């Protein structure tokens, strides 16, 4: 039997995701709707011979053309005509949730209302007469508690019955909401005309089309204009007449009147015995009492900083052990290959290229995963909404939105993260300008890849005030990111701010399953990038750093030296030591004459201004592709042989002793490294999320410029003040 297509629609925070997970389990698949950045989530449901594909539509409050999510939801319902719609409704928030239900009813698709969070409603003293509600709405209503799974079987049985008894395309009689005399009359007329012309008859009911025109729905008007220009003009004129009339007589707009009547209808049914309140509606619930403290004028921000600091602390300390396990694994692996394979390009490729590069990235997984887990906790518990609430006033100064805070934190705002899921987290921002501004500045955060370099150089030159400097860099990233966002919003990205009208959902105890799914989704994005782009880049970099090899005369000299050592050092230990040193020197020389080396040397003409020599240049070029490789490249360039990101203590000492390095150079290098172009994968993400490569290139150009200017100012400024000698 062909699985039927079901749509899952409802308000954000109504438990839609919980329901979706409960029904489909691990059999989910995330993709994209073509042309937009809205995610398409599908999953399989199978029980007792009922097979369905459930499409989780984006959470929406309404079906206007106000946002991409609503358009996507609307288009899906109209074009793909699911066999049934499961409309999840938050019982504790019934009035507002039914606003969407009304609009779904007007679309005349088969619907089953899943009345969720019955437990919360009961705790609040609300008694809901489900049968009455079903009668007044004219569709089946099934009470459920998605978190525990209660009622789900009955829900799906009801859906199955509806699917079997109401084939799609049937024209069920639905309750018609009255929108007041003025609108009703025109609506009737327009509906008749639309029906007779068969306008969009394959997609929407005629009354729905007419209503949308009265509501001045730009999306729909754009659709019908080319189909029937004359009819459209007439319908639009009729709608304008109503609008004029309303403006003159009641000083209001059709949209407002329609919204008022929808809520009036809803209030009407609820008053007729559907809901009875045992307690005063405005009594404070536990959530509100918690908020009194957590969003308090003084305690609020202090607690927030405390929470962020705790996340930082937990992430770093708990992940230290697993990170060292992963590192040992890769060290062992490269050791094994070292001993079993013969010397030559293949071995070098495997060890220096692949294991070094990819291993470095994978080594971060425990840290990143833990960070994402902590983020999932504050997201799922509802605390994140409070953070956005408290931060909004500050973020608005920079042309951003309180909700941007998430994207910054995921990208490494606390320290450790990844800009790839960070960039994707900007999807929740509705205004395109604010979204772009956030997109383009999240790469400034200290992602997991930047941490080892920070650790290396701070450890080498600022060991006495290690944590202070780390904290300082975190703070600096935020300052630069916010200032850059402001400048972008004043110049290239001018535009109106997104409305902040937002729900503050009640605090919830996150479910373990939900936390795992959220954590894994983001971690997987990070791993995927390692397996694909970084692997490719590592190989490319390896090639650039190996070829062309040493020029013949130099190679000959090294061979000579080798022979000399073998002859002159009789004692095994001494000989091995000298040979190792020689090999390291040879590698550094080979690096210098490789393609990457030559570029590094050529760049010295400019980079000296910031205090970088060719070795730093190569490392930074490598970092252009993937910042994880900066440390290992630096290690190779300083002839440390094979060095991996974790074992940087010896490199640290080496740099501290090197005459061309000093604290000022270290500072300048760090500044450049933290702020220059995002890594390649992030650039690709930016291109995808912004819809154009133009922005991706822009982000590379402007961040590298900022980084260069910062380094320049600090280095030259420092030299002037006498620091750099």
């Amino acid at each position, binding site marked *: 039997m062909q699985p039927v297509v079901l749509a899952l629609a409802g308000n954000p925070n109504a438990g839609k995701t919980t329901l979706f997970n409960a029904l489909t389990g691990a059999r989910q698949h995330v993709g994209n709707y073509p042309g937009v950045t809205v995610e398409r989530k599908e999953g399989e449901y199978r029980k007792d011979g009922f097979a369905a594909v459930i499409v989780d539509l984006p959470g929406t*409050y*309404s079906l*206007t053309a*106000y946002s991409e999510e609503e358009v996507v939801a609307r288009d899906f319902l109209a074009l793909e005509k699911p066999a049934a719609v499961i409309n999840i409704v938050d019982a*504790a*928030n019934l*009035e*507002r949730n039914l*606003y969407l239900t009304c609009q779904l009813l007007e679309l005349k698709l088969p619907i089953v209302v899943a009345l969720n969070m019955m437990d919360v409603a009961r705790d*609040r003293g609300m008694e809901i007469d489900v049968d009455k509600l079903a009668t007044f709405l004219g569709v089946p209503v099934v009470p459920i508690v998605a978190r525990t799974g209660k009622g789900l079987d009955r829900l799906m049985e009801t859906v199955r019955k509806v699917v079997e008894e109401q084939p799609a395309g049937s024209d069920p009689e639905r309750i018609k909401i009255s929108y007041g005399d003025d609108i009703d009359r025109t609506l009737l007329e327009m509906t008749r005309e639309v029906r007779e012309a068969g306008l969009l008859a394959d997609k929407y009911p005629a009354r729905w089309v007419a209503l949308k025109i009265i509501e001045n729905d730009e999306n729909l008007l754009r659709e019908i204009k080319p189909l029937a220009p004359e009819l459209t003009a007439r319908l639009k004129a009729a709608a304008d007449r109503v609008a004029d009339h309303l403006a003159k007589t009641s*000083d*209001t*707009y059709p*949209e*407002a009147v329609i*919204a*008022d009547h929808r*809520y*009036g209808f809803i209030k009407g049914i609820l008053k007729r015995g559907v809901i009875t309140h045992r307690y005063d*509606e*405005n009594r404070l*619930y536990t*959530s*509100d009492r918690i*908020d*009194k403290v957590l*969003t*308090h*004028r*003084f305690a*609020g*921000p202090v607690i927030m900083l405390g929470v962020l600091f705790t996340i930082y602390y937990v992430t770093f300390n708990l992940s230290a052990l697993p990170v060292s396990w992963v590192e040992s694994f890769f060290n062992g692996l490269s050791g094994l290959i070292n001993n079993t394979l013969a010397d030559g390009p293949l071995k070098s490729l495997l060890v220096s290229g692949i294991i070094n590069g990819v291993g470095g990235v994978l080594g971060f997984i425990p840290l990143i995963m833990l960070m994402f887990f902590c983020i999932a906790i504050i997201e799922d518990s509802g605390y994140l909404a409070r953070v956005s*609430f*408290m931060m*909004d*006033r*500050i973020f*608005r100064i920079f042309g951003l939105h*309180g909700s941007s805070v998430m994207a910054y934190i995921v990208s490494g705002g606390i320290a450790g993260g990844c800009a790839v899921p960070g960039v994707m987290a900007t999807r929740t921002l509705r205004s395109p300008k604010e979204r772009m501004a956030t997109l383009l500045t999240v790469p400034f955060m200290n992602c997991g890849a930047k941490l080892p370099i920070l650790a290396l150089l701070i450890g080498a030159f600022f060991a006495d005030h290690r944590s202070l400097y780390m904290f300082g860099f975190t703070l600096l990233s935020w300052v630069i990111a916010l200032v850059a966002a402001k400048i972008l919003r004043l110049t290239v990205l001018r535009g109106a701010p997104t*409305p*902040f*009208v*937002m*729900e*503050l959902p*009640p605090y919830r105890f996150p479910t373990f399953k939900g936390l795992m799914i959220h954590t894994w989704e983001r971690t997987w994005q990070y791993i995927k990038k390692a397996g694909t782009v970084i692997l490719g880049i590592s190989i490319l970099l390896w090639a650039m750093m190996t070829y062309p090899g040493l020029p013949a005369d130099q190679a000959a000299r090294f061979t000579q030296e080798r022979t000399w050592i073998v002859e002159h050092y009789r004692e095994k230990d001494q000989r091995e030591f000298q040979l190792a040193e020689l090999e390291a020197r040879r590698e550094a020389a080979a690096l210098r004459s490789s393609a990457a080396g030559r570029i590094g040397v050529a760049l010295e003409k400019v980079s000296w201004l910031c205090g970088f020599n060719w070795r730093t240049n190569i490392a930074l070029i490598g970092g252009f592709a993937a910042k994880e490789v900066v440390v290992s490249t630096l290690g190779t360039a300083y002839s440390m042989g094979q060095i991996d990101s974790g074992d940087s203590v010896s490199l640290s000492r080496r740099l501290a002793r090197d005459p061309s390095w000093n604290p000022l150079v270290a500072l300048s290098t760090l500044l450049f490294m933290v702020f220059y172009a995002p890594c390649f994968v992030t650039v690709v993400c930016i291109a995808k999320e912004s819809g154009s490569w133009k922005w991706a290139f822009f982000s590379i150009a402007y961040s590298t410029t900022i980084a260069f200017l910062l380094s320049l100012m600090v280095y030259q400024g420092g030299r002037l003040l006498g620091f750099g000698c």
Partner: protein
Amino acid sequence: MTKKISLRRMKKNQRGVISAVKVAGDLGRRIRDMGLVTGTEITIQGRAPLNDPVALRIRGNTLTLRNNEADFIEVEVEDNGE
């Protein structure tokens, strides 16, 4: 006696009934979609540490909006001679 004031000027814990939402376009739609329509009873729950945004109680749930958005919402409140 009652008077009509802008939502922005309401104080913490003050109650009122929305009498008008004077804005169209995206913001207007958003405000209405969230349930802020004429005849709705609201209570000011509090404000963020920097006085902006404001959190209000509506039908037992909490909504937040910025002061410059609250400007468009007219509310009928008790006139205590303040």
